[in-house]
């Protein structure tokens, strides 16, 4: 599948290979929902094209109605038809395609079994928990045998406790299917996606295999999703110098960059130590920052200072008497900082 969307503030191109799962990451309002709506045929963009298996679905002169696209959409909200049982909900797609009642019901039961809620076939949506309802919605979308499945943050509305189980179900049933997955969750991307596309401000800022994007992010958003601190700048004397003068010493991952080459430095918040006053010692980077926010992070405290973060113990946070507005020094060893070339902002493919 290929899609190119040009609408008000959006210019995004997306390609999904046969059997490939592509995760679309990006902040709210980045244009992800517009992209899905265009592919599903719910929105006709100012300009753009959607092609599936060589058939033009949306184009300057082509328009295929949503029901005729073989593109199924699964949103945060399961939206099960309230007047139908779980089984009838799942049988809806096959029935609409002209399958006979008994055959459609058999197929629906198989799909319910597949997603692990076979015993709830006779329940009405109102009698299902959020996680159960979303499983039925997954079964319903798959039973329609779409060529492309669009998942719009399928777990965002679910209780955190039931997400892992649904994620495992999705990992199993999505294997070998063409899927576009919009998500905020790094785990979704890691476990479900072959490839990641990062959209920011209506443009694709980064794309590549999931592992590569999450370990060597090029965009601030991907770094944030991956939970990494990121400093972009130029390479000078074994350190990355950012435009604002911030200097972070690090080790090049791969061939050493040339002087003044654009580079990116990433390091984990857990590799950062926090001090009230800059300590001595050389192969370290000291960054004078002001604390903007403190939040619990597992059994530690995440100290935010602008776009940088440090994870320290609760004890350390108490000893340092930290509060938003405190002036502190973030210290990170050069050996903990990975430096690699900055590809620069991606141009959308024509």
């Amino acid at each position, binding site marked *: 599948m290929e899609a190119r969307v040009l609408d008000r503030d959006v210019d995004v191109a997306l390609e999904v290979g046969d059997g490939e799962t592509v995760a679309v990451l990006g902040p709210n309002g980045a244009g992800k929902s517009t992209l899905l709506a265009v592919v599903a045929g719910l929105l006709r963009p100012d300009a753009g094209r959607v092609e599936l298996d060589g058939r033009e679905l949306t184009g300057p002169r082509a328009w295929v109605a949503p029901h005729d696209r073989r593109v199924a*959409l699964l949103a945060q909200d399961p939206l099960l038809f309230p007047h139908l049982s779980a089984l009838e909900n799942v049988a809806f797609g096959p029935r609409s395609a002209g399958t006979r009642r008994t055959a459609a019901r058999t197929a629906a039961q198989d799909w319910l079994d597949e997603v692990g809620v076979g015993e709830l076939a006779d329940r009405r949506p109102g009698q299902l928990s959020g996680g159960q309802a979303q499983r039925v919605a997954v079964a319903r979308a798959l039973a329609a045998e779409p060529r492309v499945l669009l998942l719009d943050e399928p777990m965002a509305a679910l209780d955190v406790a039931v997400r892992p189980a649904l994620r495992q179900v999705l990992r199993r049933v999505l294997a070998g299917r063409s899927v576009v997955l919009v998500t905020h969750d790094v785990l979704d991307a890691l476990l479900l996606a072959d490839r990641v596309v990062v959209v920011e401000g209506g443009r694709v800022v980064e794309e590549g295999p999931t592992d590569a994007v999450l370990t060597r992010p090029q965009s601030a958003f991907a770094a944030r999703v991956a939970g990494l601190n990121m400093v972009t700048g130029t390479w000078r004397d074994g350190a990355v110098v950012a435009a604002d003068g911030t200097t972070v010493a690090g080790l090049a991952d791969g061939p050493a960059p040339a002087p003044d080459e654009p580079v990116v430095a990433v390091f984990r918040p857990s590799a950062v130590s926090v001090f009230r006053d800059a300590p001595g010692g050389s192969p370290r980077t000291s960054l004078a920052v002001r604390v903007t926010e403190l939040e619990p992070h597992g059994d530690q405290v995440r100290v935010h200072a602008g776009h940088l973060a440090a994870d320290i113990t609760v004890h350390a946070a108490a000893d340092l008497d930290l509060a938003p507005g405190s002036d502190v020094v973030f210290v990170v060893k050069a050996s903990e900082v990975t430096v690699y070339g900055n590809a620069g902002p991606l141009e959308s493919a024509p």
Partner: protein
Amino acid sequence: MRSERPVGVPAWIFVPAALGGALVLLPLAGMLSRVEWGDFWSLVSSDSALTALSLSLRTSAASTVLCLVLGVPMALVLARTRFPGQGVVRSLVLLPLVLPPVVGGIALLYTFGRRGLLGGQLDALGVQVAFSTTAVVLAQTFVSLPFLVVSLEGALRSAGSRYETVAASLGARPTTVFRRVTLPLVLPGLVSGAVLSFARALGEFGATITFAGSLEGTTRTLPLFIYNLRVTDPDAAVAMSLVLVVVAVLVIAAARPGRSTT
């Protein structure tokens, strides 16, 4: 036993509220006080009374069916599509609600009557609408259609189109979506709209007498029958009125809003 009391209803508000209730209920009591219970059954089971009742029920049922056939598509077009002048069309559809029924009857007469807008064409086809049972059904449909359209359009708007979007993405054609998703979701609104239309058709008087006249067995529905009887046989008129009240109460009970189980 505890009971929650709503805050902020001033005590004096109960006085006009009670007066309003009395205005609705007292006339009913007045009517009941005049019913000749001894002759009640013989009065309401006279041949002409039964003829009028049966005609009323049959024409109201026919006009309700006509309202459904025409009104459901109208509500769907108003709620789910956009076209230029939609606001004007929506207002005009409501016109029969505010128009005096007599005016509606005159309008119908000069449209379907012998010398009306379509009268010539209908005459050529050998069809005479005015002063026939068909005219009664047309008059009733004219006045009761807005009830169905308004309540169904409201139901469609509050149901939203998200389920319809999902159904389409599952491969359902628009007709399948309409039949299997849209209609079942708005069924409570559709039922109450149909019941209201039926009730309005049953009570129709002005447009009917203007457009269809008052011919026994053909166009003299129960309200027309009662109006005629009022002078010659007041006891029978009161008895038949009570029948109409009972039917109306049953209809209201069936259509009471907030009863939907979903």
